[in-house]
């Protein structure tokens, strides 16, 4: 069964994949995206990341994205899990799993979901570097202006 979850604990990707895979015998394609913390950011060595989040807004947005993806791409189901709090190099921080009858819509849906989560979910990333400095990550472009009434 697909789900949306914002988690302060490590994400177990295989458990989530197995759960979604076993939810329907119509599934012919299962496509997964795993966003992982990399060691280098803008040329500097990263020690860890911290994700701040606004629980109600983030959860509402990710639920909306999941429902729209299922409708827009004709998916069987989808799971979206975002890690928050502190995370280390190599940790899985964004898991998107999409189940569909055929691969084409699943590949498109995963890319669309990842883009939408980055634009729409009320989550903020802070990078701590090994040299002791840190920075709050600014998006290349804010989409909030376009979305807000």
């Amino acid at each position: 069964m697909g789900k949306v979850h914002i988690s302060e604990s490590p994400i177990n990707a295989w458990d989530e994949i197995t759960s979604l895979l076993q939810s329907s015998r119509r599934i012919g394609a299962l496509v997964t995206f795993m966003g992982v913390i990399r060691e280098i950011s803008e040329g500097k060595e990263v020690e860890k990341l911290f994700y701040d989040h606004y629980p109600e807004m983030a959860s509402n947005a990710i639920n909306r994205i999941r429902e729209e993806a299922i409708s827009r791409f004709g998916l069987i189901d989808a799971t979206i899990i975002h890690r928050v709090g502190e995370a280390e190099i190599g940790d899985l921080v964004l898991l998107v799993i999409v189940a569909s009858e055929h691969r084409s819509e699943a590949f498109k849906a995963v890319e669309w979901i990842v883009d939408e989560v980055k634009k729409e979910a009320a989550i903020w990333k802070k990078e701590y570097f090994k040299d002791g400095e840190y920075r709050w990550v600014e998006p290349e472009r804010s989409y909030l202006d376009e979305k807000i009434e």
Partner: protein
Amino acid sequence: MSRWRRCPEHGNRDCLAGAVDMVTVRYYGWIAERLGRRQDEIKYTGPLRDLLKLLGEDIELNVRERKVFVAINHNSIKDLDVDVSEDDVVAIFPAFSGG
């Protein structure tokens, strides 16, 4: 007239004890870090614009210039002339950067 209660964390129960009928103002990301707190509880009713001015730190200016954003009861809004009333949750935050 406004009355303030400053809380280091969102939903700190000790801090919020007795804070009924107050507007909750939450801060996120670098804004919370710069202010040194996560939340204020303020006895306030009136336009959002004036509430933001009360908060200081050029928050109202930054919202107008779209450097930071604001939500009421978990919905992003642009109109600073809307009224805020007791029990509302106002959130002030930078552009999202998750993923």
